[in-house]
């Protein structure tokens, strides 16, 4: 293995490849900041460019673009509450409030450090545990996935302030209802489309995120423009703040990063789960680990609330390479595009890749790591400049946020209907937010809705309609036991108060 690592390092550290990874990180960051153009699009855009390159060089460029795009998504989440990438939605829960408090620089620095740390730990896991973990990932069955989705929903508690739990739950149901629109995945029967062909494919995730986060936030800022209590917020928005972390913040991150990395990597390894679910699970898990004071800060600018999803989504990105490189199974949309690129280079990923093309296997792993180092080196000095976006006067910033939201949707479908649907959802979301109905549970449920129904369907069909599947498999039972423990603990603590 040492020999393989050295081969990988030698390839990845050549001048040409270092240049490629730097360019990849830079362009990836820009593409990731644009709503609607996530890592998947970014990598797809690179495929024609890389065809003339050697396979290792092409893959190194793609790895740079991949991590750059994920970081770019975090940047727009934190600064304008417009997650450019689904995996960075959870980043906005605490990142955006921090930016509003005049700590945009610090929030971006936390995101950069957490991403780097999450990616580093995951790269180490990838080096040592990839072959054995690929077998574990295949051991997951539908009941286990269903239990995992339920566990993911326990994160809802993180978004409900005192006495608002029912509101959060109603938003969960609304999110699941929105996710059920369109053709049923198995039977192709149309549901809730009202005869409109634009709804046949369901409602796009980016559309719902843009409507409930970016657009509704822009409308809320305008709506509350005359509110005197918002005046201080406007002043703090123009402050960039320091990017230095104090000792307490560093200590908090040191606790969060290891556990979120492990969780993120393991979720990333599971086919179909991915960075979005990893980040939500990490956010919910972190809230359960922290003390009562820190818990109150969640959703209002908590350091740990920001570090957890950022660590987990990067760790999950690395984790997603495990089934791709070792089994030839893409675990996410992005790795599916990567698989296409590998096949284009004439490389067949799978158990034999390690033996037949060791230089490819190791150089991809090493370049992923080098990509993260370069990303950190490139982005840290740029943070004060990137954060200046917030200093843009409100009269200019709001229309630009609306422009990015509409363009993100327009680029995906070239369809007026999606734009109107987004405006409609944004107006309703703005009204609901005025009355403290939280939006994150809606997004969480929307993400999990499709997978949840799919896995419940498979489980029930396999068990012939019996709910025994919930405790038949030890893995399902363990995940559900953790879920029940978390819920019971929440209820117990609320009674204790």
């Amino acid at each position, binding site marked *: 293995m040492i020999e393989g690592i050295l081969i990988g390092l030698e390839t990845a550290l050549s001048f040409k490849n270092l240049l490629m990874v730097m360019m990849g990180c830079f362009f990836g960051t820009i593409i990731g900041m644009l709503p609607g153009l996530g890592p998947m699009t970014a990598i797809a855009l690179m495929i024609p460019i890389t065809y003339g390159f050697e396979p290792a060089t092409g893959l190194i460029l793609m790895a740079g673009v991949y991590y750059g795009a994920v970081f770019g998504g975090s940047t727009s989440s934190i600064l304008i509450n417009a997650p450019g990438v689904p995996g960075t939605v959870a980043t906005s829960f605490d990142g955006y409030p921090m930016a509003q408090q005049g700590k945009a620089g610090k929030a971006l620095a936390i995101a950069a450090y957490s991403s780097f740390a999450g990616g580093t730990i995951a790269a180490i896991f990838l080096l040592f545990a990839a072959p054995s973990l690929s077998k574990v990932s295949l051991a997951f069955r539908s009941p286990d996935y269903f239990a995992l989705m339920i566990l993911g929903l326990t994160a809802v508690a993180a978004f409900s302030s005192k*006495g608002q739990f029912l509101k959060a739950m109603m938003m969960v149901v609304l999110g699941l209802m929105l996710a059920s629109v369109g053709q049923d995945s198995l039977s192709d029967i149309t549901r809730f489309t009202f005869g409109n062909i634009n709804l046949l494919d369901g409602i796009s995730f980016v559309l719902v995120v843009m409507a409930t986060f970016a657009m509704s936030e822009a409308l809320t800022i305008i709506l509350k423009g005359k509110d005197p209590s918002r005046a201080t917020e406007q002043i703090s928005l123009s402050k960039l703040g320091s990017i230095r972390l104090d000792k307490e913040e560093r200590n908090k991150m040191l606790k969060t990063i290891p556990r979120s990395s492990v969780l993120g990597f393991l979720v990333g390894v599971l086919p179909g789960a991915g960075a979005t679910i990893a980040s939500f699970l990490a956010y919910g898990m972190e809230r359960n680990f922290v003390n009562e004071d820190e818990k109150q800060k969640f959703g209002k600018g908590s350091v740990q609330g920001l570090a957890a999803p950022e660590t987990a989504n990067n760790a999950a990105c690395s984790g997603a390479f495990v089934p791709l490189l070792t089994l030839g199974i893409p675990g996410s949309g992005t790795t599916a595009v990567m698989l296409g690129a590998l096949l284009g280079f004439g490389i067949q990923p799978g158990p034999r890749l390690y033996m037949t093309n060791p230089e490819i296997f190791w150089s991809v792993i090493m370049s992923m790591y080098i990509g993260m180092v370069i990303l950190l080196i490139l982005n840290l000095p740029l943070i004060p400049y990137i954060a200046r976006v917030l200093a843009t006067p409100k009269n200019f910033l*709001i229309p630009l946020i*609306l422009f990015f939201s509409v363009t993100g949707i*327009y680029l995906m479908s070239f369809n*007026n209907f999606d734009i109107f649907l987004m405006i409609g959802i944004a107006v309703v979301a703005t009204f609901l937010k005025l009355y403290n109905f939280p939006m994150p549970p809606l997004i969480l449920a929307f993400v999990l809705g499709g997978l949840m129904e799919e896995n419940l369907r498979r489980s029930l069909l396999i068990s*012939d309609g019996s709910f025994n599947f919930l405790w038949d498999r030890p893995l399902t039972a363990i995940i559900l036991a953790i879920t029940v423990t978390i819920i019971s603990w929440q209820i117990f603590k609320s009674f204790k108060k």
Partner: protein
Amino acid sequence: MRISTDKVISLLFFVLSAFYLHQTYQIQVFSFDENAPFNAKTFPTFLAYIGMFLSILYVVLPENKPTKVDHKVLDYRSSIYLVIITVIYGFVILRAGFFLSTSFFLFFSYYFLGERRWIWMFILSFPFVALFMFLLHGILDVYLRDPLLKLLGIIG
């Protein structure tokens, strides 16, 4: 008896859930799937009942602290203007093309939000959109529909 807006929203959610349930029963499943342990209706039916249950629970249970919104300080006028401009933008983007519609959308949005620095309003609309289009269409090769620029031979 005075009912809080939070509870009115919950009642509306009850109506939405009831309507969702009604629509669930309209889903036409295949005859062989009708008695299957799980079909296209199963999950939505669960959701509808859970939604109705939660909303009724919210209405019935005493409220801790109903949300108070001071409507006098809310700027409804600017918000409505902005929504209308965005709707118009949505209507014309396919017909007038990306460049003109986006540039005018940005320019008028700045204007309706009270901005009067004309030079900045211009720079952050027409040249900004041109630069954005160059990045997307020229460098990244992302397709942007623009019949006008196509007619003028500026884009392919």
